[in-house]
């Protein structure tokens, strides 16, 4: 377990993330936002991977943990003086409470994890299609409640006045933390047990693994990581419920499938590749750039990403990495 090949599997995604961060310091301040956004997306996709990749059960509901994390971190960090203006109907105990940047992120992770625990206790009994639809139901409910319940957040309004503390470094450290947690989990006892249930659930339960408990554990862990990612996200840019709904669900799932659902390396590669494409195209859509770039009509970005995703699924259903971890060339496992 402690052999260097395995450390390479952890080091490769970390090096990639740090590389992206370093690249981000070189570009202009306006493009830096793309890099920070990319790193937050890496965190979300890796959080998704911890559950979907290791368990093989599809979840459409993880963005609800991201949303809850974002709401937690957001509500708790808006300065007390500005709360009544943005959130006039906020519950009393939230009105006076304000915490700093780091505690808000930890609380976001806690909120995501607890919510995942409550949901998972019931839903992890399901599998296959029923699980997919039920997690989708969770996303619908979360979106609906956050949209209209104004005692816990801004409701329909945009979450403004949240301190924008997620810069390049906070996003990088966040992504590294998420990657490390994911790696330690998947190399450890529980991760291996869950992967065994993914490969063959009846065989795994025959050797005494509780499919339910292993799935629940991964669900909670991945919910906490998603909550953390949501906290990072809300500190990055002003958002509302619509930015934490179907589009984000689609794009993050697309990233995961594109890179390869089966591996951490795939999750990171997928997030970086689609983000890079996305940023490049949305830059090209802004026709203000005069240079070698072609001005593209609005919406090209979405079409390209959708087409690419369908294409990858048809040609390489197991993703770019084929679900394998990073390996140095020339070495055999």
């Amino acid at each position, binding site marked *: 377990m402690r052999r260097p090949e395995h450390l390479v599997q952890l080091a490769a995604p970390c090096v990639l993330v740090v590389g992206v961060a370093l690249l981000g310091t070189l570009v202009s301040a306006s493009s830096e936002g793309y890099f920070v956004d990319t790193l937050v997306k890496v965190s979300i996709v890796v959080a998704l991977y911890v559950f979907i990749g290791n368990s093989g059960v599809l979840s459409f509901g993880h963005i609800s943990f991201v949303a809850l994390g974002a709401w937690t971190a957001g509500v708790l960090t808006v300065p007390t003086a500005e709360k009544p203006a943005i959130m006039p109907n906020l519950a009393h105990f939230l009105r006076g409470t304000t915490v700093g940047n780091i505690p808000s992120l930890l609380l976001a992770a806690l909120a995501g994890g607890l919510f995942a625990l409550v949901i998972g206790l019931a*839903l992890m009994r399901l599998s296959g299609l029923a699980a997919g639809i039920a997690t989708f139901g969770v996303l619908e409910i979360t979106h609906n409640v956050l949209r209209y319940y104004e005692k816990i957040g801004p409701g329909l309004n945009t979450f403004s006045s949240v301190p924008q503390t997620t810069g390049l470094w906070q996003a990088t450290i966040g992504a590294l933390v998420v990657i490390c947690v994911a790696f330690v989990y998947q190399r450890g006892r529980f991760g291996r047990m869950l992967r065994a249930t993914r490969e063959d659930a009846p065989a795994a339960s025959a050797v005494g693994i509780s499919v339910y408990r292993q799935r629940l554990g991964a669900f909670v862990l991945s919910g906490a990581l998603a909550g953390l990612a949501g906290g990072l996200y809300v500190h990055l840019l002003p958002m509302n419920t619509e930015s934490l709904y179907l589009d984000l669900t689609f794009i993050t799932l697309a990233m995961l499938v594109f890179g390869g659902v089966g591996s951490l390396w795939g999750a990171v590669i997928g997030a970086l590749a689609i983000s890079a494409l996305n940023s490049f195209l949305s830059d090209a859509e802004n026709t203000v750039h005069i240079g070698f770039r072609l001005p593209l009509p609005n919406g090209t970005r979405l079409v390209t990403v959708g087409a690419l995703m369908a294409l990858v699924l048809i040609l390489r259903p197991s993703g770019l990495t084929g679900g394998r971890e990073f390996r140095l060339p020339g070495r055999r496992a």
Partner: protein
Amino acid sequence: MTLAILNVDWQTLADALALGAVYALMAVGIGLVFGVLRLVNFAYRQLVMAGAYALAFASQWNWPGWAGILFCFAVVLALSFVMDRLVFRPLRTQSPAVMLVATFAVAYLLQSIALLWFGPLGKIASSLAQLNRPFVISGVDIRKIAVVAVIVAVLCLVGLQVLLVRTTVGLQMRAVAIDFRTARMLGVRANRVIGGAVVISGLLAAVVAIMLTVQTPLVTPDFALRDTIVVLAGVVLGGMNRPVPATLGGFAIGFASGLLGGALPTTQSQYLPSILFAAVILVLLVRPNGIFTRGRDLLERV
């Protein structure tokens, strides 16, 4: 008694019935594709959307109503053929999760194309607007489209049931649904049967497009989004394996949301999606195969 408690009048009941009928039609289409292909088609909504755009363009070009309807059928059928050939057929051997994500991708792609070509503002499909006018029976406004929807839904369901039970193609479809490989070995031409299912579900999508554009003539890239999400839940609720339970599920959820939407005050009815999906999750936990199915015929294949 319960009606009095919920403060439901006949008007709400009539509207709920109409909504239920349209949702039942959508549910038939989704349930049929699932039964035969084992595929939850997230892109079904985009078929409906394409049909709605066809109707909108037809009325923009001042085509007569019947020409618009034909155009709508043609567009939806062509699109469902292309979707089957280019995406679903190459992926047929893949796991359900990959297929599910693939339909997700196709849905996203088609929606972005609509956004790119037709813009976010939407178009008006007005050529069939006279069907939206009400007539009055003892103080209750009943829109003509509601009657049409109920009749069409019943006809489609009966027709489908006859097709599945009385014809060879129907028998083959059911065989493919139960066991794809064995059916194929016994001489069922799988691609023909699946093609047949795709055509039928495309026809249903076109019918749904017509019904929905009469009710909401403004066609935008996210046309029918709400409806499809709710219907999908309803189909799972009813039981995805057979068309009749699926349809009943679709009708039930349409009827329930119509009823609750009409009966609850706005402060509560804004949480309607939460109530519906909480019910769906509960049902899934208690009866994963759906409430309108008997026995346990869906086993996880080992």
